[in-house]
């Protein structure tokens, strides 16, 4: 399902905004719902009823006594390790947030005002992000969930940026983000990349919350809810 959404979103060149956030939420929540369906994990279901049975792929031999299942377990272990590392480095429920590095030049009153606004927006967003973070933790073995939550957290930051600049000049926040970008050490490549992308979205006019009609998103959700149980 992640593959379908990934190809689709890239084909549509879906911009940041509410639609993208909804799709990422689907990607995080639906696998948990379908995994809870009783009997879906039985051999008979996989062999006789399912549309796609991953057990067949997992049984493919690789080298020596290793099978594809061993490779998948290794990827899952790596995903869990990344989760543990992220918690150790950034703290579990840190996002969204504005990480202000040491050595940031002083901010003007306008800039301080927009920073305060963005912190308020973060506070409003936090409950939703924490809920999804817990869902992502439950699936910490799943690299797709890791990727989906990372993108969701970015989208939440973009959404907070948009709320913070309402009634203000977006250039002011862009300037603040660029200052943080310049003060962020080069070794923090992902952090710098996120800041740069946020500036890009801001300067492009902010997120597009109506990139796709709600009907389309609902139809996609229903389709995935109906199809996902048959893929084991």
């Amino acid at each position, binding site marked *: 399902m992640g*593959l379908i959404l990934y190809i689709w979103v890239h084909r549509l060149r879906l911009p940041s905004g509410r639609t993208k956030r909804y799709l990422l939420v689907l990607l995080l929540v639906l696998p948990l719902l379908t995994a809870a369906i009783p009997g879906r994990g039985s051999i008979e279901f996989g062999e006789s009823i399912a549309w*796609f049975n991953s057990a*067949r*792929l997992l049984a493919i031999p690789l080298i020596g006594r290793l099978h594809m299942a061993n490779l998948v377990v290794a990827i899952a272990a790596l995903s869990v390790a990344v989760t543990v590392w992220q918690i150790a480095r950034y703290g579990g429920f840190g996002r969204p947030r504005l990480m202000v590095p040491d050595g940031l030049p002083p901010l003007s009153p306008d800039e301080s005002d927009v920073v305060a606004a963005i912190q308020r927006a973060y506070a409003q967003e936090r409950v939703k992000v924490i809920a999804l973070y817990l869902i992502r933790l439950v699936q910490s073995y799943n690299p797709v969930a890791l990727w989906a939550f990372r993108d969701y957290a970015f989208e939440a930051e973009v959404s907070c940026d948009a709320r913070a600049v309402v009634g203000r000049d977006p250039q002011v926040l862009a300037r603040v983000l660029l200052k943080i970008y310049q003060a962020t050490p080069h070794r923090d490549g992902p952090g710098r990349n996120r800041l740069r992308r946020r500036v890009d979205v801001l300067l492009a006019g902010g997120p597009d919350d109506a990139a796709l*009609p709600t009907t389309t998103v609902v139809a996609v959700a229903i*389709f995935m809810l109906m199809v996902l149980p048959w*893929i084991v």
Partner: protein
Amino acid sequence: MDRVRGLLSFGLIAVAVLVVLRLVSLTVPMVVPGTQPGPIAVARLDDVRDRIGFAPIVPAYRPATLGSKPVSILVVHNPSPTLIVAWREGDAYLSITQRRGGPKPDAPAGAVPLPDVPESTWWTTGAEHHLIVSRVGFWIEITTNLPVNDLKRFADTLALY
């Protein structure tokens, strides 16, 4: 159309991905036969339903000469869900093969109905008796080297475990 903008491309991508997944799921066991789940050993008759989705049908009558517990319980999922249960003690043995649906199992040309056992096909190979019966949507093949009287009692006492 504007209300469902983007849905067509989603549908096309979803169908393409699902077709590829289905083809992979079907062709992998053909290319790599070891990926076919089965035969799978099951520890107890109580666990059979969880492993294959139906309850075993076994003879309630089992002479002491066969031992108290099956020596082997296997499930196979393809081409048809099948359960194979075997008892053995010394030279005496009994094997029950229970298959859900599908065509009737092959029997030699000389096979005949076993007297007083409805819907049965019976033949012998040396000292070994074979009996095929149909019960509640299952084909059940009984193979044993015990006397024909025991064979008949096996068939008469077939019941859900």
